[in-house]
């Protein structure tokens, strides 16, 4: 184990992949965000100058390029930038990448790794604060991983690199500095396996990405009140570990989902709908979503801060389901 920040873990795993596969290439600008950790990327730039590409500001074209290369067996880690910058590439993703394997009757493989940064940043306002993962969950054919720590980033990107499918790895733009104990050796975290970060008998609390930390803080607050929350991080949306979710709800009978995507048709909605459909009999209380309100993000700090799930909001939701049934 080494103490390492999220940016370092990304560099670490990209280095492993670049060393392993001499054709593996990395493409994108500001792969480690705009914060001070961005300079950690320089280590890769030095070691693999010929396999690091800074594309033009042409998201649609370089995403398609990465996809086409994958069709010919060359894997590229393509960083699209922020969620909003994935929108100009939306056709490349939804039209070209997602369905290619299917439409070819399984004859074409497309093992591209797409990466983007999501989330409310500091002053990102309406065009630099997107969390588009729910939209991508609505597009079948792409595996989606949302690391919530440096350790997960290393292990999940490693799995993405090995997958035969297109994968989308989504980092929170404010997490690159978050430190964690990360195994030094090479390891992979399987897709479709949730991580239970805290056990608890009263309420199942699902969270991903940066919101996992928020959820754990909420769980501490609630523990002090005698409420034991079980915090589950699905780690990947596609494939989704339904089993772990349903097992937990079977134990607790209560579900709160905290997530930074927007409320309507967001990630929390899908998880709630899944349980309302297949786990209804397990439930003692309503399923509460703590999500981003259905509004663009304001550039003003108080309004911006009110967009994201906080320990207080999550705790309030948990108390609400505890008062029920």
């Amino acid at each position, binding site marked *: 184990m080494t103490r390492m920040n999220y940016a370092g873990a990304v560099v670490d795993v990209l280095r492993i992949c670049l060393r392993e596969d001499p*054709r593996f*290439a990395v493409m994108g600008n500001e792969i480690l965000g705009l914060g001070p950790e961005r300079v950690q990327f320089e280590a890769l730039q030095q070691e693999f100058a010929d396999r690091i*590409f800074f*594309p*033009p500001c*042409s998201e*649609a*074209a*370089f*995403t*398609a*390029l*990465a*996809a*086409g*290369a*994958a*069709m*010919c*067996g*060359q894997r*590229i880690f393509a960083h699209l930038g922020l969620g909003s910058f994935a929108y100009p590439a939306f*056709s*490349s993703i939804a*039209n*070209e990448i997602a369905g*290619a*394997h*299917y*439409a*070819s*009757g*399984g*004859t*074409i*493989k*497309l*093992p591209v790794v797409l990466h983007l940064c999501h989330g409310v940043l500091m002053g990102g306002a309406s065009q630099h604060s997107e969390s588009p993962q729910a939209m991508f969950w609505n597009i*079948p*054919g792409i*595996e989606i991983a949302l690391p919530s720590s440096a350790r997960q980033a290393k292990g999940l990107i490693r799995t993405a690199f090995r997958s*035969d*499918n297109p994968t989308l790895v989504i980092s929170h733009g404010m997490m690159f500095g978050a430190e964690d104990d990360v195994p030094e050796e090479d390891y992979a975290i399987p897709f479709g396996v949730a991580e239970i970060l805290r056990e608890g008998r009263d309420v199942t609390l699902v969270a991903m990405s940066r919101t996992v930390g928020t959820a754990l803080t909420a769980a501490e607050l609630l523990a002090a009140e005698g409420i034991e929350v079980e915090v589950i991080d699905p780690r990947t949306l596609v494939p989704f570990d339904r089993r772990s979710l349903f097992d937990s709800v079977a134990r607790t009978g209560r579900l709160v989902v905290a997530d930074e995507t927007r409320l309507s048709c967001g990630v929390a909605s899908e998880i709630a709908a899944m349980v309302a459909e297949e786990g209804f009999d397990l439930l003692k209380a309503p399923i509460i979503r703590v999500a981003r309100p259905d509004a663009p993000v304001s550039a003003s700090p108080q309004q911006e801060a009110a967009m994201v799930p906080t320990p207080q909001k999550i705790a309030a939701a948990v108390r609400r389901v505890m008062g029920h049934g």
Partner: protein
Amino acid sequence: MTHSWSAAHKTAVLERMLLIRRFEEGLVRLFEQHAFMAHYHLYIGQEATGVAVVEALSAADRIATTHRCHGHVLARGADPGRALAEILGRSTGYCGGRGGTMHLSVPELGFIATSGIVGGCIGLANGAAFALKQAAGDAVVAAFFGDGSLEEGVSYESMNFAALLSLPVVYVCENNSKGALGSVGGGFPTSVSAVKDLTDIPRCFGIPVETVDGRDVEQVFAAASRAVAHARQRKGPVFLHAVTERWAGSQPLWPELATGETDLAMAWDASRISGPHAAWYGQHDPVLLYARQLLAAGVLRQDELAAMDRSVADRIAAAGQFALDSPLPPAGALLDHVFA
């Protein structure tokens, strides 16, 4: 880059063009019989371009194509039966029936995914070229697309990126919009561009260009060979602009056999040419043009041509029967191949 096709090769080229023609004509009939329902696009009128460009490629080269893909796949030697089966959604089709007319693709022949999104294949072709460049060897990519693709932004982005990375890709712009009606005329939407000469677009990225008569298979082959050589020598992308007259049957939104089933006798008997499509039969139909050329040069005799046509017709009839006899993949297999 000189080329000289032997007489036998010329005959084989013509036969391939004719195969495409009869395949497409047969497809219209299958559609009329409700053997499939999809909106579809025919390669009639562009046979010379597809066949010539594919002739200029090697086995290791890759190909990207669009909604108007049938001809490219057949030019590369795909089995007409499996191609028709694919269009009819049968499990014997090249994509198990899941791709249909828009996504007909034959990976074993070097095709990458076929995209029905205008402009979609250009970026994918860049990626294939990127992969080929990083790998050893001298393989190249040919990307076929219509003039309409140059209205989509991603095409410009992609040409810029290919020029920057000096990718071994041959862009083959099949400009079939000469005389096209477009939406304004109630026809298929095509070419709404302020660019007077479409080659100005690649030129502005420093990409070498060549315009050829897309109806003339030997002319296209010569130009395509130069283009492929350029890319093979790792000198970067090239843009080939092949201009054809729009076939009347591709004017409306849904294809029609406007010019009838091609009467090959028009190649040797000018008296058969008349009516509203006389100019087509006489000057624009690439199959008739090449047939006439080979007859005039003594490469082929009239009876040989007629025999070739009968054999092609038999192949297409058999292919159609094969497709119709093939089973549909079951609804229960719906979720297969979402993931590898």
